[in-house]
């Protein structure tokens, strides 16, 4: 099994190497990077490229590690017992399988995505150490041990909101997705808009990277924002000239709201553009 990127997803060589190392050596791969650089998409694309089922576990601030293994639905059991349901005698009826259990008992290897692990409690990663390491866990209620038939390929994404524990990190591979440079960006856009006019694209990318250089922006536009913006440009059929005014002066690009999501950022940018004009 080797991941070589897909037709919808441009992976840089170092990212591919990290993914393949994780697959080969069966270690979880921890992915960090600026928002909108395709961290979550990576797992989806790897699953698609290798033709493996994808199991997703989206972590929230209230998520417990246990929920990824299984949950004991005590409330249903209580209700059933009061209604005199026969199922109540078998505790196994009230064990709800979590994502990892599903992955462990699958017939073929699976891709497991643990999305935004940093959202959960600080202890969350520690609670998963053994499960991710040995790929097995014990079900207390039914006294059984679940062991992985095939070790799943595990992707973990993090937005850096919390520090992850060292013991956890040591068991993972780590890759930081850098913001794509102009060439990579060109390839990414080509994937999404095969028919886009080259002059429009070039002008748009220029505006985009220029915008990212503007100091003091609260939120720099990212890849996903660029894609949205290009979608709008294509839909509105805006020519390349509109991105640069006729006398090659800087202008606020049309539909800039798709790139700058913050009102202060838009004001700041407009002020800078106005200043740049006066200086000419």
């Amino acid at each position: 099994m080797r991941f070589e990127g897909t037709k919808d997803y441009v992976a840089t060589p170092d990212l591919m190497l990290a993914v393949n190392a994780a697959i080969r050596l069966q270690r979880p791969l921890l992915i960090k990077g600026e928002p909108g650089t395709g961290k979550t998409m990576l797992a989806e694309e790897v699953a698609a490229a290798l033709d493996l089922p994808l199991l997703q576990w989206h972590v929230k601030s209230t998520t417990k590690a246990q929920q990824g293994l299984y949950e004991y639905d005590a409330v249903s059991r209580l209700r059933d017992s009061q209604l005199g349901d026969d199922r109540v005698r078998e505790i196994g009826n009230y064990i709800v399988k979590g994502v990892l259990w599903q992955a462990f008992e699958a017939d073929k290897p699976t891709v497991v995505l643990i999305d935004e692990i940093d959202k959960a409690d600080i202890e969350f990663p520690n609670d998963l150490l053994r499960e991710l390491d040995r790929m097995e866990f014990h079900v207390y209620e039914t006294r059984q041990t679940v062991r992985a038939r095939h070790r799943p390929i595990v992707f973990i994404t993090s937005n850096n909101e919390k520090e992850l524990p060292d013991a956890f990190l040591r068991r993972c591979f780590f890759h930081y997705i850098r913001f794509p440079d102009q060439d990579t960006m060109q390839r990414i856009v080509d994937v999404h808009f095969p028919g886009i006019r080259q002059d429009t694209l070039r002008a748009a990318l220029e505006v985009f990277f220029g915008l990212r250089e503007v100091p003091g922006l609260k939120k720099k536009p990212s890849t996903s924002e660029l894609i949205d913006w290009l979608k709008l440009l294509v839909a509105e059929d805006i020519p390349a000239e509109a991105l640069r005014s006729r006398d090659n002066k800087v202008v606020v690009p049309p539909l800039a709201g798709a790139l700058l999501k913050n009102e202060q950022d838009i004001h700041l940018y407009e002020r800078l553009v106005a200043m740049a004009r006066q200086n000419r």
Partner: protein
Amino acid sequence: MLIDFFLHLKHRKLPVSTREFLTLLEGVRDGVCGPSIDEFFHFARTCLVKDESLYDRFDRAFGEYLGNVQAIAGLEAELPEEWLRAVATRHLSPEDRARLEKLGWDKLMETFRERLREQKERHQGGSKWIGTGGTSPFGNSGVHPEGIRVGGESAGNRTAVKVWERREFRNLDDSVELGTRNIKVALRRLRRFAREGASEELDLDGTITATARNAGWLNLMMRPERHNAVKVLLFLDVGGSMDDHVKVCEELFSACRTEFKHLEYFYFHNCVYESVWKDNRRRYSERIAVTDLLHKYGPDYKLIVVGDATMSPYEILHPHGSIEHMNAEPGAAWLRRLLDTWPAAAWLNPEPERLWQYRQSIGIIRDIVGERMYPMTLAGLEAAMRQLSKKH
């Protein structure tokens, strides 16, 4: 195999563990990375470095290691050579090359590599090294060294040397001063510290579950409350020698502002005396007595003082020592009062840590705050937050 490499990384203060090293070897054995040094570099980084703020340190350590060792187990012997060759080819005229070929490529490469290393060590030798002495094979090529160092750019083959020489992750190193990106990470550290609390509340879900498990007998469960329990008092030094640090202080301040519900901030100049102020424009008209603060804010507040602690020792130790007014009591007395009232305290100093030992006043203040002075870098901030979140 590669043990030197591992030890070198350790020596460069990278937190690498034996386990990760064994994984690296396993990967190399299984051929996860190809024979090219570029792939080895990326694989080693994936394996050993788990934090992007350490990428830069790793890049540098890797470069250094490669500088010392010409070939590790045949893995990377070829590429630097290839790279040098490419660079040389591009920057030498055909005549030069013809002439140099008489010397033999091997000899040439040897010299070239030596020059390159020499240049790296000196770092700003400028155009000197390439012009040195008429005997140099590169004497009349007129190539600027800077041009050679970034030369590989358009060659198409993304050679490894370039990658770590570029040091793309430079601004993520956590020993650098806080910057626009870095402040975000620091801010998150503050948030973590802001979420801790100890009081208890009813755990409804837990109670239901426990009751159900208990076959219907009520079983109350309690759990610690999750809220922003941390209260912070921020004292900021303004003016004078702090002018150099305005930007970094502003960043820290704005980060704190959004993070804490209970944040009170006050300004002072050089040292805290009997009064402070909240608005710099009205610093003379609207002053707040420090005694009022001492009574108003309870000991559960955490005290963070931001200042460079750079002043004349008189300003701390002597009555009437202040440069602005006649203070009846020395600054040190006021500082001690603050520390007595708020035992959880830290002093953040924007001055680089290496300069601290040369400033007498910094030594005095460190002594007063009980060594709880931290540089205003990410690492320093982290240490300060750790210290603050301890029980006092």
